[in-house]
């Protein structure tokens, strides 16, 4: 294939018009692909390709679209980022958990004078336990700033840790880790909005940074589900709100 043939191919696949039998002939000649190979790419019978080519059968819009996609892949992308950035995986779990507020309030690192305020707070921050066999409960770096941020809002916040035992852990990669928290279902939309505002305020120069957060949503009866999210900041609020809506529907259907 020479450059002119390559340019013609690019023009065919990038044009909005459906592929004609002349275009198909150009594709076959330029790529050197056989009718059988085109048939395999597009999940058609080779005889169908032959009929398309000779004009005996009109080329369907579906075939045209599929062929353009396949030839585009075969040609390879002309513009891409390099080194190839591995697309950030979205990790999202929304599963029942036994680690509700009741579990955390009886932990030895939670002093008695905090138990009542934690039980009544809208947002309760909980630590990571057993991180790499480190004996103490730790919070991700920046937890203090998040605590301060929420304190200034209309929501009340508490943390399941004494001042003396409070430690932060700074980890390796550039993922923005938010502290794990327990909230009630009622305040969840407000909390999500607050988290979104916090991210844009804390990292104003970063477009759509990767974040990870764990939010446990607790019901009045003590049952709880944990939302584990690892993905882009832009998708966070949308995905988690959809999960919350699902939870609400699930509850209503059971009533």
């Amino acid at each position, binding site marked *: *294939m020479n450059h002119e043939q390559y340019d013609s191919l690019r023009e065919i696949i990038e044009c909005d018009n459906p592929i004609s039998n002349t275009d198909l002939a150009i594709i076959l000649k330029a790529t050197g692909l056989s009718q059988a190979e085109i048939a395999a790419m597009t999940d058609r019978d080779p005889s169908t390709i032959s009929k398309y080519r000779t004009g005996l059968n009109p080329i369907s819009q579906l075939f045209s679209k599929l062929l353009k996609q396949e030839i585009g892949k075969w040609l*390879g992308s002309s513009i891409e*980022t390099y080194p190839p950035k591995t697309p950030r995986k979205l990790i999202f779990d929304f599963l029942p958990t036994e680690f509700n507020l009741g579990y955390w309030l009886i932990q030895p690192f939670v002093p008695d004078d905090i138990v009542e305020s934690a039980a009544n707070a809208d947002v309760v921050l909980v630590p990571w336990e057993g991180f*790499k066999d480190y004996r103490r409960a730790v919070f991700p770096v920046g937890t203090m700033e998040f605590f*301060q941020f929420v304190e200034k809002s209309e929501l009340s916040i508490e943390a399941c840790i004494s001042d003396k035992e409070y430690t932060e852990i700074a980890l*390796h*990669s550039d993922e923005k880790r938010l502290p794990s928290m327990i909230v009630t279902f009622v305040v969840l939309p407000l909390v999500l909005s607050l988290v979104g505002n916090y991210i844009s305020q804390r990292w104003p*120069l970063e477009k759509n940074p990767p974040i990870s957060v764990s939010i446990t949503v607790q019901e009045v009866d003590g049952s709880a589900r944990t939302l584990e999210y690892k993905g882009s900041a832009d998708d966070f609020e949308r995905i988690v709100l959809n999960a919350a809506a699902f939870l609400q529907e699930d509850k209503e259907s059971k009533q």
Partner: protein
Amino acid sequence: MTVALRKKTAQIVSKFVYHNGGVNVDGLPNHVENLHRLKREAVQAGKQDVAKEIWILESVITVHQRYCESYSLLKSEKYYEGWCLLERAEILLNSLIRHADDDLNQFGLEFLQNHIPKLQSIFPYRIFFSPEIVEEELKCSICGSVQTIRKKCAHEVGEIYDGELCCRIVSKMKILGISIVTEPVQKYSVGFVQSEDGTKIDDHDYSLVNYLMERLTSPYHVWGVRWKRIFHPHKFYKHVHPTDKCPCGSDKTYRVCCLRKPGVQNPHCEFTFSVPPKAELLKTIYINDRGERATD
């Protein structure tokens, strides 16, 4: 007073640009000393706003100095030193942008905001060794008080007090381990190999950085970079048999893959320059799968 200082700082910054990044700019040492003195006086008089303004102006000059020194280091092929200084410029710039007003162009900050990441993107560093640190005690850099989740001082991290940036100082810590990462918080933590006698071996490929530095005559000339794939002429792949794996890196054979196309499709870094380099430097350089270089 600060209006006059701003104007003077903007003049100094334009001298950086005019001198093509030369750090011995006329009037710079005097202006910096003047800023330090005025900031001390403002702090003593309790004028926090004025002290903050002067911090901004000092930081503007420091960011440009670091950027220019980094450029000089890269020109001298001291790549890792240049990389580290570039990171320090980036960190200060991020603290500064938060406080600078919308008129960034007056101090050339928008230029730095665009070009520092571009320059970092053409470095070959992909593996970093990053520590996992437990911060057991944190103190405020302004008042020195210990910070806990409920007992914090009134100073906010990132704000300016007494003409200084507030941050947290880790006064007690424990290192849990070192991780190998690709997107680190600390960019200086590049992985290098060491020889038996302890000498650092730097076998990174700096050809992109070199290519750019050979063609830039000033750190303040606007340039761009775009990654794409282009066809490398088949004549540079005569050593590859049609039944061998395609040199483009796909799993197909050469015959089935790129031999049918105008060339071997390989990643290509395309630079654009606002000030064109000399004509003889404007050539496409091809590097084949053996690392051999050629121009067309």
